[in-house]
């Protein structure tokens, strides 16, 4: 009974905390409830994960201590929200359609939606089988995230041992989002239930799929959303990655959330500073999930500076950069604390600057890395990238995109990330072919949901060839 109440409390805190964090924006950001719920859940998950980490560092994160800290944090946020609401009530609030379209126009969208439903059922059945047979996950999840969760949960006095395990094998320099999320649920349960890691993994799969579907349905109609969902759940690498309980799908969810809030803000006339602050906040949360999130923060920051082709010196650019910086700095705090005080240096620093220069001056390496990366991008068996090229040819590009700046920023971010990955492989201390082969597909998995969002935001889908989709309240 105590465990049940505790776990109910644990989930309630995620919902209430996320809602409160998101509340100042939601009141001026009238989006469908389902879409808002997904964003609230992501904000809540980030909040409780960070609280758990700081609780460990201060009073050891016992069940009651943790609950008290979470209640206190919610109370503090509530005070802030009430203050903000009083200020906002004096200004006019934005008005927009608050519902998802309830019907799908045209048979292609309906067929795709039905098909996506079938895929989700088949996927869920597969996930359950996999989780029952292998609750600890794939070896990478075992040694990095689930191992880390055990270090944080099992001995609150010696949780710092997490950073003393071998760097090359266990990656103790990794951020602690997933580890703290799992350890927090164990703390509330009072035991190390094997159901928790798969539950968290499935939760992020559901959130990423729901975020992709609801955001596209809201911005581009349900048909586009259904097509995107089919390609997401039908991608081998997405399925494999989520079966494995690794952090690629969770980080992909936060990468997608950054671009989605930017798009929603633009669509609903949220001012530049606020929408870029929201995007920055979700980007910072991505960096708390995985080291690659740091590169994403820089890439989206570069897109904020260059911003959809506008001259960089305009006042608008200043607002974008300021907003983005403010949002990102707040959610990057736990990452900075972790990296500065706790985590050992990454194994990627092996060899020092001299070794990096030697690699960069090796001419043959440039072509080798490029060739290997291109070979992965055009593979048909795992990711739908060649399929998307074909669909773009058939559908053609939309000229009037309601969230054009956000789409441009997203495309630029993906391009910057690709350049970042390229440079990363250029200086890797490992064999280039081996490193690209074992990691690049996973990096592409992290970009799959946002890639599909950007694609279906820009390309016309069958029902728009002839007419629009009906929206009903």
């Amino acid at each position, binding site marked *: 009974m105590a465990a049940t109440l505790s776990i109910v409390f644990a989930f309630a805190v995620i919902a209430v905390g996320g809602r409160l964090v998101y509340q100042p924006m939601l009141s001026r950001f009238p989006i469908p409830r389902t879409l808002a719920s997904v964003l609230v859940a992501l904000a809540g998950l980030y909040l409780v994960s960070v609280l758990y980490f700081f609780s460990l560092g201060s009073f050891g994160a016992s069940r009651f201590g943790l609950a008290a800290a979470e209640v206190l944090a919610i109370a503090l946020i509530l005070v802030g929200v009430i203050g903000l609401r009083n200020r906002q009530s004096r200004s006019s609030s934005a008005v927009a359609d608050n519902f998802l379209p309830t019907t799908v126009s045209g048979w292609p969208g309906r067929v795709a939606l039905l098909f996506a439903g079938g*895929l989700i059922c088949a996927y869920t059945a597969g996930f359950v089988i996999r989780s029952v047979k292998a609750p600890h996950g794939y070896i990478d999840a*075992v040694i990095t995230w689930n*191992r880390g969760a055990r270090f944080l949960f099992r*001995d609150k006095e010696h949780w710092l041992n997490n950073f003393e395990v071998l760097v090359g*094998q266990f990656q103790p320099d990794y951020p602690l989002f997933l580890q703290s999320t799992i350890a927090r649920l164990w703390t509330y349960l009072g035991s190390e239930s094997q159901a928790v890691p798969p539950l968290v993994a499935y939760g992020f799969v559901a959130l990423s799929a729901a975020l992709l579907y609801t955001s596209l349905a809201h911005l581009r109609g349900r048909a586009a959303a259904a097509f995107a969902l089919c390609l997401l759940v039908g991608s081998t690498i997405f399925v*494999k990655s989520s079966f494995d309980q690794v952090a690629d799908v969770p980080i992909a969810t936060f990468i997608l959330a950054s671009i989605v809030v930017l798009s929603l803000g633009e669509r609903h006339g949220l001012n530049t500073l606020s929408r870029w602050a929201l995007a920055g906040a979700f980007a910072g949360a991505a960096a708390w999930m995985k080291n690659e999130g740091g590169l994403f923060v820089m890439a989206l920051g570069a897109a904020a500076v260059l911003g959809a082709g506008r001259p960089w010196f305009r006042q608008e650019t200043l607002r974008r950069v300021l907003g983005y910086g403010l949002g990102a700095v707040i959610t990057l705090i736990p990452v900075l604390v972790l990296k500065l005080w706790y985590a050992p240096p990454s194994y990627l620093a092996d060899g020092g600057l001299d070794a990096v220069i030697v690699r960069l001056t090796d001419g043959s390496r440039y072509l080798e890395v490029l060739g290997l990366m291109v070979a992965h991008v055009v593979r048909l068996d795992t990711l739908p990238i060649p399929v998307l090229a074909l669909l773009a040819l*058939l559908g053609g590009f939309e000229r009037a995109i309601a969230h054009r700046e956000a789409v441009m920023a997203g495309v630029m971010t993906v391009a910057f990330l690709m350049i970042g990955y390229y440079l990363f492989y250029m200086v890797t201390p490992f064999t280039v072919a081996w490193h690209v082969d074992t990691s690049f597909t996973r990096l592409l998995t992290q970009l799959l949901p946002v890639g599909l969002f950007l694609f279906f935001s820009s390309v016309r889908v069958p029902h728009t060839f002839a007419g629009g989709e009906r929206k009903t309240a």
Partner: protein
Amino acid sequence: MNRLRAILFTLIVLLFPAAQFFGWAQSSSAIRAFVGNVGLERAFSIGTTTTDQQDVVTRLRQDDPGESFESRFAPLRPFLRPDQHIGFVTDRAWPAGGSRGPERAFLFAQYALAPLVLTDSDTSKYVVASFSSESVLDMMAEGKGTVCSKRQVPVDSNETSDRLDEPLLIQPVIAAPRLRPLDYLRQIYRCDKSTFRIVRRFGDGVAILESVSLGQ
């Protein structure tokens, strides 16, 4: 024209996940057997499956290797203090031909024994042993085994291969980072006669050992 585009667009979107699912199904021996029984074997063998597609089915089929380590190491935990750094030995296969047996054993042991920290150093006084049987453990205690660890100084590679007929015990399991398979295979281990004393047995080849040579 628009109708044709719509049909093609929809078909392409649906075909992609369908092809992925078909690839997974082809990798499943159970589905293969069923299709063979109903006489559709030829139609079912269209195209080739890729490693990634096979992996999806492999993951559904395989039991968790972590589970066996969990049960084997659970009795040890009350006897180990989290503030200790402790070594690890195993007789899992020598890393020839890309096998990562010893490495896997080490990784799963660390997972099972958290928050105790396992080291890759051979200077630990106490060592967790994970052997295939109790008889290997006995040989170790009698000094009949060979302990091979990451070499600290260059040694003749022939020296290690000459000793492969003896029970080979690798300590520590890992020498190079996991992400360097080529270096990993090139590694040469330094091997010595085992000088361990059994501190406590836990059955199934699991024990806590004390390094006698370090005490001398």
